């Protein structure tokens, strides 16, 4: 029945769609002007203007007028009494009408086969993930199966693009009308899109987050260079398109709070303000997010409750995930509160039907209806510069609007129709109208008229509200209505006529009614409980169902607090710098003064202010150091914590990538290492390639953002690597990337520096033909002693090889790291002038470390080298003091010299010995108070401070652990209650701990540790 009614309508729409000027008509022309007048409506023109009891007239797909008064004579009048009219919604982050991407995104695998150049045919960019030449308008085709669900949500216009690649080309603005593409497109190139994900690109590069950043930066430079049409580049359609698209709104899919900031920084560098597609966790860093000044695109894809019934499973869900589940619906409210402009997208939802429930949840969490409406109408229109067409209701604009049964955001409101370009699309229209409301039901039978209150919940649920009424059955298809209900038996069953059913149910016979829906009244006939014919009429008394509208009932559930970082061990308030007086400690100064017994150290304004006996300072926090040991903080020369990616291994030379572009300030290992006395870490690129990426020196300021972690003012470094890893020895499929031998490694270096030297010369010549090359820029810095190398190295031949290269090109290898055969060529390293940084006792994990010996550090130290002991391991870094102690066991290094290997010596190797590494007045107050001799295995760090701020306090840590337990329990109970209450729940998702490393070693990191490359 329903089909029969709908059919003529769809036929009509198709017919209208075909009525286009240049297209021939197969049959008789049927031109229409489509004049409609919508009367008696509450018309919300925009967030600030509402016309009560108004009339809106549309013609030929556009709005003609909005106001009050009578409908024009040539209009079809649509009575909208009790209804609201809103502008149709706009989604700027859609892929409506696009073909799906071809293959799932492949991540770089250290052992995977490599593809060095793009396989895209044609005059396009060298990198397959730069797809600026793609224009969504060329790919666009209307797709009713995708349009309908969006229209049902209230959307009328979308900005659509192919979500594939790092530069994704342009998007097209189209309506969701069921028309030929020619007529639905409102703007063909409306915005340009970018992301950090290379999508279907099969090319190996970039294989990391920092590689994606570098590729974007290089492409900005390439595009600039391309403007002068360099002969060497020929035709590059990708770069041409890139340049053409720059004036458009630039939209960046970042999908995570840190990536948002990362994207914004790229924008800042090249004078672009991106519109950023966020990831839903921005509320965790809203201050930083606001500072981007970017408008945001936000999804309503909130995390689902997990099935945490089984404690064995629940144990593996981290508190941070539980908290995010609870707090994520507040993301939009956080944006509104921070006055950050944003729009809302229906993208990312697993089921589009969750759009409205989730939006209402966001309202419950404090988002205002005004902001929500703006984010779905005016703001997206303004961002796309299509406010003249859509986003509000005004004469001249497109007739894109929705008719609703009430306030758009109320839970009980029903979307009745969505009109797009003047065409009507039924959602829950008069034909297929979802009913809800209170009706007065009058049943007129032989000799009696009975009245009942009928409460209709929806088209299949209704209740006759009467003290005598029992069960009600109801069904409506929007047009035909059937209703039956029973009454309490007025009297017993007729005597002598046993009726088991009657007695069992204790119910009377049913009154059965059927009829037609005439809108606010229903009318029909039926039979009463005695079988007599009746007639009936039901009249709408009140729209909607009584009871509380949960969207309006703003409950303020107790929510978890946002902590920095967003982790069980985070702090509500960032730890503050304090004036601290440590009294009566044994102070290991690492200076000429040596060890000072019973000594006080005063810390002020982040610096070591005084060292002496009997010190006092008013207002200082006093820490009793008696029987304890105060040392400078540990410095780890070789670490891979606190980053989202470590290896850009797709090419042998990747000096353009920067660890600093992808710091992860929420890595729990920062906190764990503070508990081991570490205060400064040198975060290195991995060892997958000969010339790796630029490194980042950080201080372990737990809770700071990525910029806040950086050790400001330190000299820039870069990671190099030699030997088996860069030859890809362990690759089971064999290696196809040059080099495959140490001979080749040498030539990679030789070639890179030769190119750098030639490049520098060309740059100096001022020629416009020279392409700015980020890779070579970094190498030129090395040549000019403005950037310094720390080189992963093992065997003597390769050590000498790099020294030879350095001497040939006139620079010094600053540090050899790992350097397990350093003891064999310590004299030569000394002559060259490098620092060395090694493991205490690792060996035999591959062929090139067969000759590694734990006496290495001792020999090199006795040969006069500046020796560091490093971790290269998130676990071992918390015991670096013990690793240093092993040099006493293996080779008889003195205690003082041993401890310097993890403090002062790395400070020297990293050129920051004027700031850290010893306890000296004026130096940074990066200090550790130990319970015992810091070289003993029995020593525990009691306090660890960075810049005079206590970031680790062993007593406080116990409180944190207790807090984690309480908070976990609260959230798990809440999740259980939510699932019980009918919230959709998904299988438990154990939270992985991503541990990144050189790709050399695998240290046990707990059962949930995953290699960074797995994600």
């Amino acid at each position, binding site marked *: 029945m329903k089909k029969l009614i709908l059919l003529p309508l769809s036929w009509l729409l198709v017919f209208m769609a075909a009525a286009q000027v240049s297209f021939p008509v197969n049959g008789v022309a049927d031109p229409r002007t489509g004049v409609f007048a919508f009367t008696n409506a509450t018309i919300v023109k925009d967030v600030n203007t509402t016309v009560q009891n108004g009339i809106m007239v549309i013609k030929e797909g556009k709005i003609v007028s909005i106001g009050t008064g009578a409908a024009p004579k040539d209009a079809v009048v649509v009575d909208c009494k009790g209804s609201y009219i809103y502008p149709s919604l706009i989604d700027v982050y859609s892929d409506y009408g696009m073909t799906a991407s071809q293959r799932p995104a492949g991540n770089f695998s250290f052992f995977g086969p490599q593809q060095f150049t793009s396989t895209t045919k044609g005059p396009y960019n060298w990198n397959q993930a730069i797809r600026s030449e793609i224009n969504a308008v060329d790919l666009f085709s209307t797709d009713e199966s995708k349009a309908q669900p969006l229209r049902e949500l209230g959307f009328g216009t979308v900005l659509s693009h192919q979500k594939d690649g790092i530069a994704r080309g342009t998007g097209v603005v189209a309506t969701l009308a069921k028309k030929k593409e020619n007529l639905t497109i409102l703007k063909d190139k409306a915005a340009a899109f970018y992301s950090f994900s290379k999508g279907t690109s099969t090319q190996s590069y970039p294989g990391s987050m920092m590689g994606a950043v570098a590729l974007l930066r290089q492409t900005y430079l390439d595009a600039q260079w391309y403007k002068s049409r360099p002969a060497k580049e020929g035709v590059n359609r990708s770069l041409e398109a890139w340049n053409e698209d720059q004036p458009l709104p630039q939209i960046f899919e970042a999908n995570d709070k840190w990536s948002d900031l990362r994207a914004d920084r790229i924008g800042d560098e090249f004078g672009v303000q991106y519109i950023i597609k966020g990831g839903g966790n921005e509320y965790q860093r809203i201050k930083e997010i606001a500072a981007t000044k970017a408008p945001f695109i936000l999804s309503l894809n909130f995390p689902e409750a997990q099935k945490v019934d089984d404690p064995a499973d629940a144990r593996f869900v981290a508190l941070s995930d539980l908290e995010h589940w609870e707090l994520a619906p507040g993301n939009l409210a956080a944006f509104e509160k921070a006055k950050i402009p944003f729009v809302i997208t229906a993208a990312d939802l697993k089921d589009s039907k969750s759009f409205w429930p989730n939006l209402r949840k966001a309202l419950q969490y404090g988002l205002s209806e005004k902001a929500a409406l703006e984010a779905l109408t005016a703001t997206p229109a303004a961002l796309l510069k299509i406010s003249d067409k859509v986003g509000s209701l005004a004469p001249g604009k497109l007739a894109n609007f929705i008719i609703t049964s009430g306030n758009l955001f109320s839970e009980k409101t029903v979307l009745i129709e969505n009109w797009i370009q003047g065409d009507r699309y039924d959602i829950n229209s008069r034909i297929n109208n979802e009913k809800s409301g209170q009706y007065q039901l009058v049943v007129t039978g032989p000799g009696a008229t009975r009245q009942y209150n009928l409460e209709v919940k929806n088209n299949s649920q209704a209740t006759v509200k009467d003290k005598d009424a029992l069960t009600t059955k109801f069904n409506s298809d929007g047009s035909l209505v059937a209703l039956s209900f029973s009454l309490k038996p007025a009297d017993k069953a007729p005597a002598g006529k046993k009726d088991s059913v009657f007695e069992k149910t204790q119910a009377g016979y049913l009154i059965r009614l059927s009829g037609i829906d005439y809108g606010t009244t229903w009318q029909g006939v039926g039979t009463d409980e005695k079988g007599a014919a009746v007639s009936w009429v039901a009249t709408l008394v009140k729209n909607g169902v009584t009871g509380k509208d949960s969207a309006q009932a703003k409950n303020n559930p107790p929510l978890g607090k946002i902590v920095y970082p967003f982790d069980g061990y985070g702090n509500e308030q960032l730890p503050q710098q304090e004036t601290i007086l440590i009294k009566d400690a044994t102070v290991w100064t690492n200076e000429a003064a040596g060890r000072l017994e019973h000594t006080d150290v005063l810390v002020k304004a982040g610096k070591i202010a005084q060292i002496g006996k009997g010190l006092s300072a008013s207002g200082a926090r006093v820490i009793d150091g008696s029987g304890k040991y105060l040392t400078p903080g540990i410095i780890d020369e070789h670490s891979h914590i606190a980053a989202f990616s470590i290896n850009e291994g797709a090419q042998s030379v990747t000096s353009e990538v920067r660890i600093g572009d992808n710091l992860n300030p929420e890595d729990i290992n920062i906190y764990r290492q503070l508990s081991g006395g570490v205060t400064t870490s040198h975060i290195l690129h991995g060892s997958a390639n000969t010339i790796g990426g630029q490194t980042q020196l950080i201080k372990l300021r737990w809770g700071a953002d990525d910029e806040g972690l950086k050790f400001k003012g330190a000299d820039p470094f870069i990671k190099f690597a030699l030997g088996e890893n860069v030859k890809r020895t362990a690759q089971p499929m064999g290696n196809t990337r040059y080099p495959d031998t140490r001979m080749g490694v040498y030539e990679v270096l030789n070639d890179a520096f030769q190119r750098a030297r030639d490049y520098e010369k060309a740059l100096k010549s001022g020629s416009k033909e020279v392409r700015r090359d980020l890779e070579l820029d970094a190498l030129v810095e090395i040549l000019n002693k403005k950037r310094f190398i720390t080189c992963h190295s093992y065997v003597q031949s390769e050590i000498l090889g790099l020294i030879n290269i350095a001497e040939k090109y006139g620079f010094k290898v600053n540090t050899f790291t790992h350097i397990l055969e350093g003891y064999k060529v310590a004299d030569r390293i000394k002559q060259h002038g490098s620092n060395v940084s090694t493991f205490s006792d690792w060996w035999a994990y591959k062929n090139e470390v067969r000759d590694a010996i734990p006496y290495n550090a001792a020999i090199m130290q006795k040969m006069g080298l500046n020796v560091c002991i490093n971790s290269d*391991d998130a676990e071992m870094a918390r015991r670096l003091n013990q690793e240093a102690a092993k040099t006493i066991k293996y080779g008889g290094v003195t*205690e003082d010299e041993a401890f310097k290997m993890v403090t002062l010596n790395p400070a020297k190797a990293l050129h920051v010995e004027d700031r850290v590494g010893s306890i000296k007045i004026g130096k940074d107050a990066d200090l550790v108070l130990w319970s015992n001799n810091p070289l003993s295995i029995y020593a525990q760090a009691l306090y660890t401070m960075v810049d005079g701020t206590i970031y680790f306090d062993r007593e406080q840590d116990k409180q944190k652990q207790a807090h984690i337990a309480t908070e*976990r329990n609260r959230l798990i109970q809440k999740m259980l209650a939510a699932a019980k209450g009918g919230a959709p729940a998904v299988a438990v998702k154990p939270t992985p701990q991503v541990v990144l490393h050189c790709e050399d070693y695998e240290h046990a990191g707990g059962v949930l540790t995953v290699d960074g490359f797995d994600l």
Partner: protein
Amino acid sequence: MKLAFYILFFFCSLAAAAQDDIYPAKKQEGVIIINNGIIHTGKGAVIQNGSVVIRDGKIQKVSEQPETISGATVIDASGKNVYPGLILPSTDLGLREIGSGVRGSNDYYELGEYNPDVRSIVAYNTDSRIINTLRSNGILLANVIPNGRFLTGSSSVVQLDAWTWEDALYKADNGMVLNMPELIKPLRSYGPAPATDPVKEGMKKVEELKSFFAEAKAYANASSKQETNLKFEALRPLFEKKQKLFVTADISRQILVAIDLAKTFDINVVIVGGSDSYLLADLLKQNNIPVILNALHALPTLEDDAIDQPFKTPAILKKAGVLFALNDDFAEARYRNLAFLAGTASAYGLSKEEALQAITADAARILGVDDRAGSIEVGKDANIVISSGDILDMDKSIVTDAFIQGRKINLANKQTQLYHRYREKYKL
């Protein structure tokens, strides 16, 4: 002290270029007396100024004063610590030479899921360069296990001073090794959810194993049989309780399944790994299931876990009365830091003697060699280590002498030889 150390090196590595001239020691001749040492028995007792008399490879006497026997070799251990030889309870030592990239050097991981017949001992390479570096850190016995996908075969205990694996054999086939499936739900990731539930898959595998065991047990009970099944034959000692089942299990669900195996088949089960064992300490105690704790120097399982959780797990097990040993399975340093794991356990709640017990006497009990090894007691094999300082603390742990079955072993290794070689180069 330092000087003595260097002199030792000198003699050990005189004219040496490779470990090939580090010879296994000859059978003990005569009597050896260790006098004036601080004797840690491995079972909690400490004897100040004690002495140990060694004859025919056995401990003949432990006393609280110096001993004199004419003709005896006397070792003055004044100010030094005397310990039972340390025991590495679960390792691929001698099976895995070069960690990666040199496939030919590895014999620790066999193909197939059901390999109960596979025996680690037959591939144990006494000439491995790794072995001697453990001895010089006090490790004198090791339980060598075969690795693999599921039921991987039997382990054997070896002593670390031998010409061949037959010489090295200390206790044959003491354990059968089972790698428990993961039993953990798919991790949160950005990719699509996997089609299968690893918990269900894992439990299916466990059910298969139970059928396999049931058949093997029935086979063992049969009075006669037509054909010999080598795999079932290999399981016979397990059902006769002459062998223990070493089950690699970390999380509680795995451990519970392991306990179930012990009950169902009436076999002795040992948990290997046990990172979450502290959560089930009472249950382990009730069921008399011992634990070999792997990698104490590991990150906590979860970001929410106590930052020092692995470190304090031994103290929790101790308090609950669970029998446990510590194991160093950290491949990059090659298992030589066993003593320091005990040191860490001691820093986080165990007494030093309790920590020592977890790498000596209790390890011996779990491996089934406590009749001969693991403690300094009369009648035991003279497996003894002398250290100049606290062996649990790296800055003092310098082993000066070691005896296996009364044989004074050479503490040099390839690394000390290279050390000597390059001190020679630089005249250090």
